[in-house]
């Protein structure tokens, strides 16, 4: 890569931070910390959006940054913390694949993502190669986290982190989506978390635990 402007370097740093946070999530078993890591991802995302807004002078990006800040740094983590306190789930059990194994798989995923991102990068209007590649990695790492975790709460944080990755991809490849779509996506995410809150209480009421072990009765009836 040749010369990068300061803005690009800063954007790359944001991307690197996001990836780091994704790996931190992958190894973290304490649910409260997981939510905090998610909030930090949101903060980095806000910073990246502001950076882009400042560089391009796009008005709607400031709005989008404010939306990210309000939703992903403040509201959603607050809701999740409240849920954790009221449900009393603080720890996830041992993941299905141990931490070092998960990390190794994660590394392979990152390499794969960069290969996948190559054609997009050629087309992207803003990004350096790393930004798009990292967006794809964040999505797939979150996916990996959802597969390997047992507790419903960790799966949800994984799901939200996946949405962060998609959002960052949109941001770095094309200055975000049109505002109406971004608002709609934000609404869906918010409603999704609220629905999940209701849902968790239903699961708890029924099983007195949020371990997804209980949700394995519906195998094919043989």
């Amino acid at each position, binding site marked *: 890569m040749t010369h990068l402007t300061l803005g690009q370097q800063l954007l790359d740093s944001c991307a690197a931070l996001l990836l780091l946070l994704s790996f931190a999530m992958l190894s973290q078993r304490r649910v409260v910390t997981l939510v905090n890591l998610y909030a930090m991802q949101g903060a980095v995302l806000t910073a990246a959006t502001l950076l882009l807004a400042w560089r391009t002078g796009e008005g709607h990006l400031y709005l989008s940054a404010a939306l990210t800040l309000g939703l992903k740094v403040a509201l959603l983590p607050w809701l999740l913390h409240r849920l954790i306190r009221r449900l009393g789930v603080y720890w996830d059990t041992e993941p299905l694949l141990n931490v070092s194994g998960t990390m190794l798989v994660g590394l392979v995923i990152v390499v794969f993502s960069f290969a996948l991102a190559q054609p997009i990068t050629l087309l992207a209007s803003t990004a350096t190669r790393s930004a798009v590649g990292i967006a794809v990695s964040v999505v797939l790492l979150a996916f990996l986290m959802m597969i390997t975790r047992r507790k419903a709460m960790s*799966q949800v944080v994984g799901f939200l982190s996946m949405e962060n990755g998609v959002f960052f991809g949109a941001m770095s490849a094309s200055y975000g989506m049109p505002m109406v*779509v971004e608002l709609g996506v934000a609404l869906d995410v918010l409603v999704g978390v609220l629905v999940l809150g209701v849902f968790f209480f239903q699961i708890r009421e029924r099983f007195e635990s949020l371990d997804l072990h209980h949700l394995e009765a519906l195998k094919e009836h043989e």
Partner: protein
Amino acid sequence: MELLLLLAFPIAGAALLGLFGAHRRAPELNAALSLATLLAACALAARVIRHGNLLLGAEQFYIDPFNVFLVALTAFVGLTTALFSRPYMRVELEHGRVTVGRLRLYHAMYQLFMFTMLLALTTNNMGLMWVAMEGATLSTVLLVTLYRTPESLEAGWKYFILCGVGIAQALFGTILLYVAAGKVLGAQGMTALLWTHLDAVKTQLEPTVLALAFVFLLIGYGTKVGLVPLHSWLPDAHAEGPTPISAVLSGLLLNVALYAVVRSKVLVEGALHSRLPSMMLMGFGLLSVVLASLLLWRQRDIKRLFAYSSIEHMGIATFAFGMGGAVANFAALLHMTVHSLTKSSIFFTAGHAAQKAGTQMMERIRGLITLSPTVGWGLMLGSLAILGVPPFGVFASEFLILTAAMHAQPWATPILLGALAVAFAGIFSKVQPMVFGETNGRRLPHPPALLPVFAHLAIVLMLGLYIPPYLAEWYRAAAHLIGGP
């Protein structure tokens, strides 16, 4: 105007039923709102017939023959399901499976679900379509878990997570589409996600990115279509939720998701100049048909049985869209219509049958014909119709698809025929003893609403014998739009 009403009725209905959904007359209100939606849909369809394609609301909405017939179908099945659900949910209330408070949730979410589907169908914005599809998942999660049984909670969780992950992939695909379009249409434009604009420039879009976008979109929306191997949420959600919800999930949501896939395919195929999207659709479709028809045999729950049959039929339609061309597209659209009508009518009768027997387990449902001839005949006729017995409409569409396959993809014909035969034997051998044989049922406190069942079957029968010219015209126009070789 018609469009505004079409979207306003269900969203206002959701708010209204959120307030008064626990009222004794709420089921009637639900049906009345669905009727109003249907009338708006008919008016919209009439306008499209008169004036051709419509581009409304600052180009955010686009109505053409492809979606207007799905809008009409969605509103129609929405109404008949509301009529069916009126006595059905009352019986569930008296059997103590739901409470009055949950009925309020049920009615409000029912209308919200209709709204999201109609929005997904009518919008011209691929991003809004995604938002609406996700909204459709969210509004039905709590409906699947309405009974709060452990199984229904599991089904709801699976539904939420699988469709949620799937739909996140679709969002990524949508973004890739936006990136590619931004290059051509100007990156800051609001227009770069509008389907009509994308369609106009589709030959200039960067092929590699679009191919990647299609993979993500197909996995995302394909999860909601229930394509194998992404189908595992579907039988659970259908079996554990209340029957009216199974009917609309199977009859409507799957169609809407397939619609989203086909819209994406039109764009991508235009850009790619290759058969990759077609091959992928055919592959997924064929795999779904074959696996679903085999898995049918292992089912013991009546609603799971027909859920697998839905996977099979969606596979057939997907395969036909993959083949492309005038005949196959026409047949696929017809197949979507008749499958939706037949399958929802089957769920109606299966729901009543399960209520009468007090279980969904097929070995304990017996002798429907003696206890309630109409339910028995409804189930029998519906099953025959879905199995493709002439003269029902499913026969016509499957026949057309097989003919087209013989022509374009001869290798696939024996596979399709074999799977259809396996499914026929599987379903028929399970339905026959349920309808005939010794009875063990009980009387229900509310007489079942069977008018929707026979109305649906009558339309399916009619479509098998005679397709009205304007409908054929829609199908032809839509088939032309979807294109293919």
